[in-house]
């Protein structure tokens, strides 16, 4: 029983308003189960209690309800939060950016560097289930004790479910209620011998899928070729893979639709299917005491009251008891920034404040600053590491906040990328000219140093945000960051984009 004429939310604390939907009494009271000192609910008067704070450094307490995750909120500044997510392999201070190690390796960085370099010291990384299932295979990982032991990484890992590949490999995917059938993108062996194909086939034929019930969903483009090997990824398969990988946080397989899709029916199907798949994921999850299953909010860009996002959130609310944390998905796919922030804003207003919130596939430094103001805790994106390999360094200053080292302007520039940066390149005096030379020469050391710099930049950014939140000055931090990037046309720069102003205004920050 959900009143979809009102916004869905639950377990909200100051400065968020108490839940409008009073059907859920637990949500309406907004009491925090873990604290005995929180002020009594004031829902009757329309105000929320304050989120109970836990001093930094407090030892985690894992409970029967949440045996693998303990979330401590240390401070808030506006809607931004500084928290620590305690996981089986370690603690993760937030806001946090998770570098992406798609295939079990952060490109060009050793695990030693990622943990020992003070400028990096990444508390958590992300690996991709789809790619790990392809190679080296999750059965192998299960045999050797999981990805942690396999790659020599002793800190937390988060794995994506493989859902994003529905979008990124859409031409190779066929989505049905059962799951997603992927054509192996690495399989060049187009064998004309049908017998061999039948032997290798571990999923339904494309023709059978196409002729099945109306619940089937054909991906845009052609169905997977019968002649190439296919991989069927059901929710149960995704969870099994992630169980074998042994990551600390695993994601439910969701029905992901590109945010620029025009088919509303597709979004509707995907939203409800995501809820059904979540239940299947939970049933298949073999390690609830050591791995945390996060559901992913879907619903396209429909943020209307009673819209698809609300439907999805309502579905998560009734499952909240066993959910340790939430992810916001279906974004970072080319949608407008105006749509982007509104979805993030809605989800942060709805999702419980005492559980971590993970925004998937984001992103650019400006996005992190804005979304943290809206209440997001965790981020991941390939952008910093990928753009590094193209010779683009992330730097403070005017938008877009990048420096192209391959530019001729850098060929004779003896300054470092960023003064005061503690990365291996800047701290050891690698000049822009030197990096320019190494990049032009195709020397792999350039990619290593650039990746080191960009990851260090992101780590510095998130640490700066956290510090500002702890000191309750995050609005000032945001204004400084935004003002640095957008100095205004009168000053020869750019004006603050409308979406940034509006998003921050929603967070109570006036730029």
């Amino acid at each position: 029983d959900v009143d979809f004429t009102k916004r869905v939310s639950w377990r909200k604390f100051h400065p968020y308003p108490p839940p409008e939907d009073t059907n859920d009494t637990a949500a309406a009271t907004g009491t925090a189960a873990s604290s005995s000192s929180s002020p009594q609910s004031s829902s009757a008067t329309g105000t929320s209690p304050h989120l109970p704070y836990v001093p930094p450094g407090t030892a985690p307490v894992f409970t029967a309800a949440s045996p693998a995750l303990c979330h401590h909120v240390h401070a808030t500044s506006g809607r931004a939060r500084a928290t620590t997510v305690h996981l089986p392999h370690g603690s993760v201070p937030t806001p946090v950016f998770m570098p992406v190690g798609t295939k079990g390796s952060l490109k060009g960085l050793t695990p030693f560097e990622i943990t020992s370099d003070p400028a990096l010291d990444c508390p958590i990384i992300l690996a991709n289930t789809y790619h790990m299932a392809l190679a080296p295979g999750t059965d192998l990982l299960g045999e050797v004790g999981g990805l942690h032991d396999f790659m020599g990484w002793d800190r937390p890992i988060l794995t994506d479910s493989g859902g994003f590949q529905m979008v990124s490999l859409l031409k190779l995917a066929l989505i049905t209620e059962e799951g997603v059938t992927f054509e192996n993108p690495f399989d060049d062996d187009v064998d004309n011998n049908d017998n061999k194909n039948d032997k290798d086939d571990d999923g339904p034929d494309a023709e059978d899928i196409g002729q099945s019930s109306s619940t089937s969903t054909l991906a845009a483009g052609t169905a997977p070729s019968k002649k190439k090997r296919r991989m069927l990824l059901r929710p149960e398969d995704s969870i099994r893979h992630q169980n074998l990988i042994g990551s600390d946080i695993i994601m439910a397989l969701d029905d992901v639709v590109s945010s620029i899709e025009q088919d509303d029916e597709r979004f509707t199907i995907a939203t409800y299917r995501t809820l059904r798949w979540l239940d299947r994921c939970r049933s298949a999850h073999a390690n609830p005491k050591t791995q945390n299953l996060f559901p992913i909010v879907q619903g396209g860009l429909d943020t209307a009251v009673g819209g698809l996002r609300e439907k999805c959130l309502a579905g998560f609310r009734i499952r909240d008891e066993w959910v340790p944390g939430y992810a916001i998905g279906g974004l970072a796919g080319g949608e407008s920034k105006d749509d982007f922030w509104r979805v993030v804003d809605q989800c942060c207003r709805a999702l419980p404040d005492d559980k971590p919130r993970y925004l998937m596939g984001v992103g650019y430094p400006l996005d992190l600053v804005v979304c943290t103001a809206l209440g997001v805790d965790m981020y991941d994106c390939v952008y910093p590491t990928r753009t590094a390999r193209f010779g683009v360094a992330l730097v403070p200053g005017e938008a877009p906040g990048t420096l192209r080292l391959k530019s001729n302007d850098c060929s004779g520039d003896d300054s470092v990328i960023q003064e005061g940066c503690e990365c291996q390149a800047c701290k050891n005096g690698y000049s822009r000219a030197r990096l320019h030379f190494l990049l032009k020469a195709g020397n792999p050391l350039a990619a290593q140093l650039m990746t080191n710099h960009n990851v260090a930049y992101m780590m510095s950014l998130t640490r700066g945000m956290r510090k500002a939140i702890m000191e309750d000055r995050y609005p000032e931090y945001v204004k400084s960051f935004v003002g640095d990037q957008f100095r205004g046309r009168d000053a020869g720069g750019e004006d603050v984009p409308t979406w940034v102003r509006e998003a921050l205004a929603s967070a109570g920050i006036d730029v």
Partner: protein
Amino acid sequence: MSSSTTPEQSSPPFKLILHCEDGSPPYLTPILLAKNFPTTNRVVRDHLVLGIEVRNSFVSPVYGPRPSDRKNGRKKEKDEKSPPASRQGSNISNNDSAMSSVACSITKPTGYTFSGRPLFKHLGIPNDYDVMACPSFDLIDNCVADMPVAATNAETSLSTPRGYQRITPELYRDVVRKMEAPSFVGLYDQASSVKNTKRARRSVERTKSWLATTVSDSVTDKEEEVEGEKTDPCPKMWAPVVGEEDMALRLECIHHAINQKAPLRGFALIGIHHVGDRQARNTLLQSCMKDIPRNMSCAVLVANDMVQILDAARNGVRYIGSALPTNLARCHKALALDLYGWRRYHENDEGERQRVNMCRRIEERSTLGDGCISLDDGIFVKDTVPFVKDCSCLACTHHSRAYVHHLINANELLAQILLFVHNLHHVLAFYDEMSQATSMEKQDIFIAHIEKQLMIRNLQAL
């Protein structure tokens, strides 16, 4: 004959001149270098020298109008395609297209030349590492499209990332002086491996004549230049010895350098690795070493594999340059030799003596294995052990064969990084063991022990 003493006279360990691509130790970010190969480590301190090539580390862009435009005082037509003139200090790549006007872009270089600057700061290398600079490890190896090295009596050409650039001995002297390198190899000319006797003769004559230009500035740390500390002048320059397979030409280079009576660090044998026949290569090395004064060191700038390294060491060459750790890493190979078994040999054991003698006879064999395991082999899919048992390198202590096998299949850069770290660690340990064996007068046993393993073409079958 120079009366200068060298630091190697009292205790000559074998030293690896690690080929640093583009001026940086391959794959080693500063933190990886400091963690895995710090100079506080005795093995690193005793056996590692970073080899830097001027040709790819000290190339600098030239901005502004080309000298030909300034001299002629005229503008070029937009569609004119005349090749640029080449002058010292303003060498222009033959690959650059002609300018369309005298007023060129201030951000786009109009040419390239060589310019020196303090190398430690420029290259980001900590200044406690030993460094040897050279024009190139080998001019022929860096030839583009089999083009012969272009040189005149006044200058030669170095292959750079910006195409061939010409360099005179004066410019080279200026560059190395500003580099402040602990040691450097003099500028040389090198004939191609094709047996052109006239060209070889010219290369020797030029190398000899260029020696004088740089040798006078080759002493470091003059007493008055070091605040408050008196230091003994240490020769910096290595005299290049060219001549390919011609022994007489090589000896001529050596004798000429000796007769200069100038302070020299030692002699750098160029292009020895081009001598394909192992017997001939050994004979050449022996002859050169016989004429090199005992109080001076000898370096071979390029040794491509373990056999060439062993041959150089066997003949008394103390400085042996190689890109072997890098090249093996790029081929997905990890060195897996047993470096310590030689210590278990006992000379009183008849069986051992026979084994040693057998290995001496096989030294003429030129086709041997490489002492490696190939991590791209499918047998390592589930092999969770280190590359080499009891190896203390970063790769072996933190990772496994299975993981690196996966990284190779996934085309991840981390595979090469880990393999390189292991291979360099292994090679330095090899040099250390070789040094100790030599000091214990058991070099023959050590070399035989290694060569026995090199006979095994497929180490991973063990």
